[in-house]
């Protein structure tokens, strides 16, 4: 007997929305208890746990349905992307800054939000922390992990047909 089962399209949607909504509720509580730190890692780890629970429950009932898994996983990714943009978007940060400063500013005043080496330094720090570059005698060298990343990105560019990047 197969562990996969066909279900009606409306039931598939309903199951996905229920699991997704439950996930959002639990994630809201986690965020309120633990704050913004490592938001992405927490969100992805919890999303993975949610998907494993959904898969386990479907396997237990011998009714794994790929449509339900796709809907739920994609809804979770969309939810994560919404919050990542809300937290990181330079445009939204500048809009909030403009609002807090009375609603009128010169273009130069925005350099407090994103100017000079500020953005680059924070990225560089994160890149080094994640092991894509390492520092040796005052010079930055690409690591094996960094080379793997750039090779994958080059392959991706060739497949998609991207000619100009950066």
């Amino acid at each position: 007997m197969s562990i996969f089962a066909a279900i009606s399209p409306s039931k598939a949607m309903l199951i996905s929305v229920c699991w997704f909504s439950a996930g959002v509720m639990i994630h809201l509580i986690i965020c309120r208890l633990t704050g913004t730190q490592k938001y992405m890692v927490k969100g992805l780890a919890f999303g993975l746990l949610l998907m494993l629970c959904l898969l386990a429950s479907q396997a237990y009932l011998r009714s794994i349905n790929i449509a339900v898994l796709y809907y739920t996983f994609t809804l979770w990714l969309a939810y994560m992307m919404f919050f990542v943009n809300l937290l990181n978007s330079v445009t939204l940060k500048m809009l909030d800054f403009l609002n807090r400063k009375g609603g009128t500013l010169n273009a130069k005043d925005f350099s407090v939000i994103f100017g000079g080496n500020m953005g680059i330094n924070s990225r560089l720090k994160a890149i080094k922390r994640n092991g894509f570059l390492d520092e040796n005698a005052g010079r930055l060298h690409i690591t094996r992990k960094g080379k793997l990343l750039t090779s994958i990105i080059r392959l991706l560019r060739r497949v998609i047909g991207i000619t100009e990047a950066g």
Partner: protein
Amino acid sequence: MAMLDFFGNAACNFMIYSSFFIFIVFLAFMRIMNMAAGKTCHAKLNKANFYFLLAYIAIGLTCLCRSFSWHLAAAFAGGIFLFITLQQIYFMALVGLAKKSVSVTIVEAAEDSNGIEENKLTEKFSGNADAVRLNRLEQMKFLGLATEQKGKYIITGRGKFFNALGNIILKIWGLERL
């Protein structure tokens, strides 16, 4: 195969498979026409994708008109969801990563076998910050979140609304902008 029979109904399954098939045709069309080449490709890709979505909607509506059922309508909605998310959640995320990621560009700049001095790397990219800032100000104007008058940027009613909405959501979730 039971694994690929999602809804136990040929017409409902057709809605999902046709959505996936049209998306694959879109990818092939995009590649053959070299639509990702050049400096700006996001708008071009989204516009082409929208026309393929319309083609899927036309096929779906034809099926619905021929034999309407609520299950078929739900499968059609699922097909639209599949098509839009394949584009916006997966494909455009990959395009963004391959084309615009600042972090990837920084790692690529250090690929030289002798490495690169941190100061030189920072200098190389510091000019980018001004360009990014000006680009985002233009984006704010384009989206109607702010207007420009004599070199000054003024927040609009829409800008105030979206900012307040974003802040309320962040407050409910207990998060702070990074």
